[in-house]
């Protein structure tokens, strides 16, 4: 019988093993022949032969099974080896599109203020003089109107130069307290490397009872917000002038590129101007018919934030649907 053990061990394929199984266990197989020999044996011999053969039978069955598993594993292994691929051929390039960096930055800004319990408010792009200027303490002759070159229509309507008219509309239709932001597109008649005739702003307004909204509150939320947007930066407030707020300030962050040491982006000053803000001018409240209130307001340009955060150099490229730029944001 030993040769069959060897045969099983030496079988190199599942098919060969099957041949061996038939040769051993088949009707005319070795075992059958051996068992047949019992007919001529004595009773004692029979018992011995039967015992031996049964031992062989179960041992060979076991050997066959073991060998089969081994061979199957080897064959699977071989088959898998044959289907090997060069994984390095398959790039990881995404086929998905991407959100526009300015819109995504706007989303991030909105996310902050929504989490801080601010309302989102929107309004029309085509506005009249009252909402865009007059109610914001910008009478017709005011030199500050020069700061915002305006697109006018033939019927004296205009394209809003900031999203502040949304604040006026909100105050005129709602009672205080107010806690809102107005995100959206705004328009100024300027077109060069650093200006486009359309850009996006987010402006905020908070109004509550008289005597409770202070400059210190404004400082808190803007410092907190700027750290959320830009990480660990220093925030600096510089007194400034806006017709609709008083006191007013411009807000700088320490330059995120040179960490305040002075570089090309910050014109060697170490600071980047990112926001305007202030305490709402009483004339604005007067224009909307609010009495005994206090409030703060702030405004920022979304393109500026996006360009700083993503280190985009050319403002105009943002409005050209340029995939070269957009695919970087996949």
């Amino acid at each position, binding site marked *: 019988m030993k040769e069959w053990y060897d045969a099983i061990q030496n079988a190199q394929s599942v098919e060969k093993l099957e041949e061996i199984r038939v040769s051993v266990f088949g009707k005319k197989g070795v075992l059958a022949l051996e068992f047949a020999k019992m007919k001529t044996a004595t009773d004692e011999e029979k018992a011995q032969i039967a015992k031996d053969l049964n031992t062989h039978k179960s041992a060979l069955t076991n050997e066959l099974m073991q060998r089969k598993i081994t061979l199957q594993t080897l064959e699977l292994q071989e088959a898998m080896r044959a289907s090997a691929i060069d994984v390095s051929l398959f790039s990881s390039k995404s086929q998905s599109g991407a*959100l526009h960096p300015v819109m995504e930055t706007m989303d991030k800004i909105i996310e902050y203020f929504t989490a801080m319990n601010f309302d989102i408010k929107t309004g029309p792009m085509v506005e009249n003089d009252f909402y865009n200027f007059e109610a914001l303490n910008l009478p017709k002759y005011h*030199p*500050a109107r020069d700061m915002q070159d305006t697109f006018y229509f033939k019927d004296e309507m205009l394209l809003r130069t900031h999203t502040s008219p949304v604040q006026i509309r909100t105050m005129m239709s709602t009672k205080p307290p107010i806690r809102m932001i107005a995100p959206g597109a705004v328009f100024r008649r300027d077109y060069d490397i650093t200006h486009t*005739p359309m850009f996006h702003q987010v402006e905020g307004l908070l109004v509550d009872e008289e005597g409770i909204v202070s400059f210190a509150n404004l400082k808190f939320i803007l410092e907190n917000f700027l750290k959320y947007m830009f990480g660990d930066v220093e925030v600096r407030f*510089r*007194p400034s002038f806006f017709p609709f707020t008083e006191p007013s300030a411009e807000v700088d962050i320490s330059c995120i590129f040179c960490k305040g040491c002075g570089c090309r982006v910050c014109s060697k000053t170490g600071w980047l101007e990112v926001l305007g803000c202030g305490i709402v001018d009483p004339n604005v409240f007067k224009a909307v018919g609010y009495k005994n209130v206090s409030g703060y307001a702030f405004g920022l340009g979304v393109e500026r934030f996006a360009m700083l955060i993503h280190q985009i150099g050319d403002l105009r490229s943002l409005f050209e649907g340029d995939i070269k730029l957009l695919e970087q944001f996949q």
Partner: protein
Amino acid sequence: MIVTRSWLNEWIDLKGITTDNLVKTLNSIGLEVDRVHHYKVPEKIVFGRVLECEKHPDADKLNICKVDIGSSTRQIVCGASNVRAGLNVVVATIGAEMPNGLIIKPVVLRGIDSEGMICSAGEIGFENIQDGIMELDESIGGYTLGQEVSENNIFGDDLIEIELTANRGDCLSIRGIARDLSAAYDRPLKEVTFNENEDRRIGIGRILSLSHEKDLNINLRYKAVDLKNLIIPFVIKLRLSQIEEKRDTDIESIMLYATHSSGVILKAYNYGFFCAKNDTMAKIVLSEDKHGYACIMSKEKASTIGIIQEDASKVTYVEGTVLIEASYIPPDIISKKMAISKIPSGPLYYRTSRGSEPELNLGLSFCLDLIESNSNSAIFGGNIELCDSYENKIVSVSKQEIDEIIGASIDKVKINKILKNLGFNTAKSHADHFVISVPRFRHDIINKQDIIEEIVRLVGIDNIPSKPFMFKEENKLKDDYFEYKKRRTYRHRAAQSGFFESVHFVFDEKKVLQKYGFDTLNEELELLNPIVNTLDTLRSTLMTGLLKAASGNVNNGYSSVKLFEVGSVFNASREESLKMAMLFCGNKESESLSNSGKPQKIDFAFFTQKIADIIGEFELRTHTTKHSLSHPFQCAEILIGDEAVGELFRVHPSVQDSYNLDITIMCEIDFTKLPDSLKVAKNVSKYQASFRDLSIVMPQEMSYDRVKGVIEKNASNELIHFYPVDRYADESLGENVSLSIRFMLQSDEKTLQEEDITSSMDAILNALKNELGITLR
């Protein structure tokens, strides 16, 4: 507004304050510093004096000079036309490295040794102030020959350019800036005194009279001077070049310098302009011109106050009588007038519309003092003036109000000090109540908040602690938020489906919109002042913008362009609405191993599938667009439920060509009509679903719409849905096509048996046969 440290120092003592600190302080008090320039004259450039000067024997334009540089005398060959003996000059000695990189070495010029260079302003890093070399005088202060020029305050100066906000006309002068610094540093302004000795002067009344027709709220003050031998001091020339302004005549330069120093508007008039023929008495008349502007008149207009001086009244001579005028016009009057009827303006208007200095005597005295000390002129005694009656505004504010708005308690003494240094009078204050008299030069201070602003900026915002605001919680998730969220959701889906978000101006070119048959604004609602021709109206569609962007990308070498935009468009009545548009051009996907480098082109089915991934389930119906961007036979209206929400089409081949595009399919959807409510789940059957395919033969011309209609009408309750899976045509079918439709059947009550399915399908087949004459293949 440009200032220099040495110039400021004439009005306020800056001792012990570094320029860095000065810049920081200016920023913190709201005078934003735009630019700082440190003049740094290189080493080995020293003061000298030309002792002798003679022509070079072999060169017409060169001079051989003996120059005293203190320790020794050097021979220097100089080519400047103005070099002469006796001049005090700046000399670059051997070894000096000039700002342009040139290193001074001993040279031989046409056979003559030259040991150094006599310098022009430009050569040592300043703006050039005259042709040739600098001619120094005592105006730069004391120095010794041979001393390094960089040690001098005027040459070692720092220039600071400040970007002023529109309300701060009072800071449009050196003195004005000094006044703000005086409050910031709590240092008094320097006492500036003028020579006003009136002895033995001829009274101005003998040569000038002033009359006015009506009260025009204007302050005027005149002096007269017999001008003779005026020489502009070097420092004034240098500073005028530093502020980048230049005047044609010396007297005009003096006016400009005095205005920039004091803030008072000054003009010099030709005396003869106001004298009638054979008359020695000048007569000035203040009246209004036809636009209502206040004017100085003789027979002709001499100037428009605060705006511009006529050339004819200017002084063109260097010797003779000159009238000097100081004027003040309230800024609101002049800018209001300008808003109503615009007239050409000059450099004066920038100052007067923001508020010039009303203290006329200061400017006038400063100016005449300059003239007197730099010429042999005789000044007439006294002055002629016209004053309005102005009383200072009074603003009162309590300490509590100040503290509430700032959000911190500010020391009372400090508040008082700040206000006083700024020139405000607080004498009438009592207890915790400030009563403040506002000087006229601060026309921008009107109310409490203005006063608080002054305190905030001088206390320094950095010194105010931040404090969170306490508020009542409120549900802020309302309509505008949901609208925003919906927009964000669809934008995200579009990006995930492979489209790039693009943002375009809401402007478009009217010609292009009209060419393709889109709405344009009614003429009377059109833009008045477009910025360029190609952006001369508001867009009524997002599609032209996307096509242009696609074209740009194709030109950049992209063979597959997928773009979308969500944005506002305007109809002919200029009503704003929100649209979403998607464009797909060229290859379905990028070249890769999976497509063996040959990706298929975008087709209608693939694009429709992409759009469904973004906006969800919809149906398409044959459609003809109003505009001409669309392929006439591959054009559909998008229906959600029964509502038309937009259009989806292949771009017309000729439009594709004109934009240089490959096959392009696009759609535009009315964004507000896209669903954003929560979905309601249907009951799902727990029994097995069965599928059946039918292949029918139908006329090529027939729309699937009709087949669909018949199937829907005759469907049993068990028919869950059906959809076309294959469309096939060949010669044997002739005018017909074969269409395979897959049906899914399912019951809520049981597993469907073969006979149930057959009876459902038979009902449909019969109906198709009877109603449309369509049979199985």
